[in-house]
C-alpha cells in the first residue's frame, strides 16, 4: 500500500551536482515508459475491445461479412438482456459465486492454519512439508482428473457442484499456504514470545497477532484463490454435465454454442460479465495484493 505512494517520492532523490542530467534522463524514461505502456495496452486490450464491440452487436450484424468487425453500426444491449433474462446464465453465475466463495473460505482456513503451524511450530517433517506443498503443482490436472473420476464417482458427487468445492482447493491451497508461510515467517518472533508470556494460547496468538499483522498477505492469498477458482476450466468441464450444475467457464461454452451456432454476441457479453467480479476484486484490493505478494514470495 505504502509502496505505491512512495514511488513518486523517488523523484526527490538527492539532487546535488547532476540535477539537469538526472531530470533529462527521467523525462526520457517517462516518455519511453508511456510508449511501452501504450504498445502493451493495445496488445492486451485488443481482444477485450473486440469482445466488447461484438457483445454490442446483433447476431445479423456479426454474421455480416461486409461490415467492419471492429465497429458497431447499431449498438444493442439485447445480448446482455437476453443473458440475464433467459437461459441459465444467471444460474451459472450463481454457481460460480457459490463455488468460488466456499472454496476461498475453505482455502483460507486450511492455509492459514497450516502456514501458521509450518512457519512457527516446527514439528517432524514440517520443513519438508513447507517446500513440498509447492511441489503439488507439479502434478498436472490432466493426470489427476482420471483417478479423480473414480474418487468423485465413488462418493457419488459426479455432476455435482460439491465436487468442485472438494477439488478446487487442490489448486488454491498450496500457493496460498506458500504465500502465508512466507508472510508469517516475516513477523518478528519477539511478538509471539510476548504473547506467550502474557499467557495467550496458540489460537489467540494466531487470531490476535498473526492474522491482523499479516492481513495484506491474507488478502493476496484470497485474491489468488478467487482468481483460480473463478477461472478453472478443466475440472468443471470433466465433472459437470447438466447445464443447471455448471459454472460460468463451462456454462458459457456449452450453452451458448449450439452445434455450429456460436452465439458470439452472447458469448462475449457473458465473458465480459464473467470478468467483472475478478476485475472489481482487483480494483479494490490491488494495493494489498502487491504488498502481500512481496512479503510472501520473497521471504519464503
Amino acid at each position: 500500500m505504502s509502496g505505491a505512494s512512495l514511488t513518486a517520492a523517488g523523484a526527490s532523490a538527492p539532487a546535488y551536482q547532476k540535477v539537469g542530467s538526472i531530470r533529462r534522463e527521467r523525462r526520457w524514461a517517462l516518455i519511453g515508459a508511456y510508449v511501452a505502456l501504450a504498445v502493451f495496452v493495445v496488445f492486451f486490450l485488443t481482444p477485450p475491445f473486440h469482445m466488447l464491440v461484438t457483445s454490442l452487436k446483433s447476431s445479423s450484424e456479426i454474421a455480416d461479412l461486409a461490415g467492419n468487425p471492429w465497429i458497431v453500426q447499431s449498438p444493442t444491449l439485447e445480448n446482455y438482456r437476453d443473458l440475464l433474462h433467459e437461459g441459465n446464465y444467471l444460474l451459472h453465475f450463481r454457481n460460480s459465486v457459490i463455488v468460488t466463495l466456499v472454496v476461498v473460505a475453505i482455502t483460507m482456513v486450511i492455509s492459514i492454519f497450516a502456514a501458521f503451524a509450518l512457519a512457527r511450530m516446527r514439528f517432524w517433517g514440517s520443513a519438508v512439508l513447507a517446500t513440498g506443498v509447492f511441489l503439488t503443482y507439479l502434478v498436472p490436472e490432466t493426470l489427476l482428473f482420471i483417478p479423480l473420476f473414480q474418487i468423485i464417482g465413488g462418493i457419488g458427487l459426479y455432476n455435482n457442484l460439491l465436487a468442485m468445492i472438494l477439488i478446487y482447493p487442490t489448486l488454491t491451497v498450496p500457493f496460498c499456504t506458500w504465500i502465508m508461510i512466507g508472510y508469517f515467517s516475516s513477523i518478528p518472533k519477539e511478538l509471539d514470545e510476548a504473547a506467550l508470556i502474557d499467557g495467550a494460547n496458540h489460537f489467540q496468538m494466531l487470531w490476535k497477532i498473526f492474522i491482523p499483522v499479516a492481513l495484506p498477505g491474507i488478502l493476496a492469498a484470497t485474491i489468488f484463490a478467487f482468481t483460480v477458482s473463478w477461472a478453472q476450466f478443466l475440472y468443471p468441464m470433466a465433472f459437470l454435465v447438466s447445464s443447471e450444475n455448471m459454472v460460468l467457464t463451462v456454462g458459457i461454452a456449452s450453452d451458448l454454442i449450439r452445434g455450429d451456432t456460436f452465439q458470439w454476441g452472447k458469448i462475449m457479453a457473458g465473458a465480459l460479465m464473467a470478468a467483472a467480479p475478478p476485475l472489481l476484486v482487483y480494483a479494490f484490493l490491488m494495493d494489498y495484493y502487491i504488498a502481500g505478494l512481496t512479503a510472501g514470495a520473497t521471504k519464503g
Partner: protein
Amino acid sequence: MADGNVLTAPGIPAAVAPPRTGRLHRLARRRSTLAFLMTLPLLAVIGGLVAYPFFYAIYLSMLNKRMTRFVGLDNFAFLLTRETFQYVVWQSVIFAVSAVIAKALIGFILAHVLHTLPAKGQRKWRGMLLVPWVIPPAISTLAWWWLFDPTYSAINWMLMGIGAPPVAWLGEPGWARFAVILVNVWYGAPFFMIMYLAALKSVPDQLYEAAAIDGATGWQKLRYVTVPMMRNIIAITVLFSLIVTFANFDIVRILTNGGPQDRTHIFGTYAFQVGIQSGDIPLGSAVSLFMFPILAVFAVFVLRGVTRRSKEMAG
C-alpha cells in the same frame, strides 16, 4: 507421525526456552501435536486429492490398454519410440519455454515502466494491463479463436485493410504454434507484471539513491540493484509459471485441439486425446507423467536456491 512429534519436540527453537525443562517438554509436545492438527486439513487435501490420485495414476500408467495387465515401464518406452510423441515433447518445451520467457520479459518491462510512473496514473494503467489476467482464460481463448477464425477473422480483416494477405492462423503449423504461444503470453504476462511490480516496490529506495551517488547508470542500477533484489521473486514466478504452462490445457484445446497435424499438441492435450478420446487411459497417464521428473528436479533446485537466498537476506 505421532512418534515423530515426540522425537523432535526437544529440538524446538531455543527462542522460547526458559530453563524449566519438564514444563517445556510438555508444552512442546502439546505444541507439536497442535501444529500437526493444524496442518491436518492441508495434509488431507494434498494426500487425498493429489498424492493418492497421483500414485494411483502412476500405477495406471503401468497397465496395458485394457487395464488388465501390469506392464511396468512399457508405456513410457513405447511413447519414446513414437514420432508423434517426440513432437509433443519438443512442442511442449518450445511452448512452455518461449511463453515463459516472453511473459517474464514483458512482465519485467511493464513492471519497470509502471514503477517509474507517478502513483496516480500508475493505478489506471495497471488496471488496464491486468484485464487479460482477470477474464477466465477458457473464455478469452474463445474470443481469440474468433479473432483467428478463417471466415470471420477480424485480424485478417485488418491485414487485408493494409493490403497484406490473410493468414491461416490456426491452419499452418508454424502460425498455429505462434498463435497458441501468443495467447498464452497475452493471458499470463500480467501475472508476471504484478509479481515483479510487487518485488520492485519492496526494493528500498535508499539502494537506488546510493547507486545514484556512486554514479551508476540506469542499466547498472538494473543490473546491480534491481535484479539481485528481485532474484527470489523472479525464480518463484518463473518456476510457478513454467509448471503451469507445461501443464496448460485449455488454450491449446480450444484454439487448435492439437492440430494441424498434431503440431500444437502439448502434454496436456495429447494426454487427453490419447487417454480420454481414444480410450487408452494408461498411455494418457504416461504422457501426463512424462514431464514430472524433469520439472521436479528443476523445482527442487529453484526452491533450494530461494530458501538459501532468503536465509542469507534474513541473516
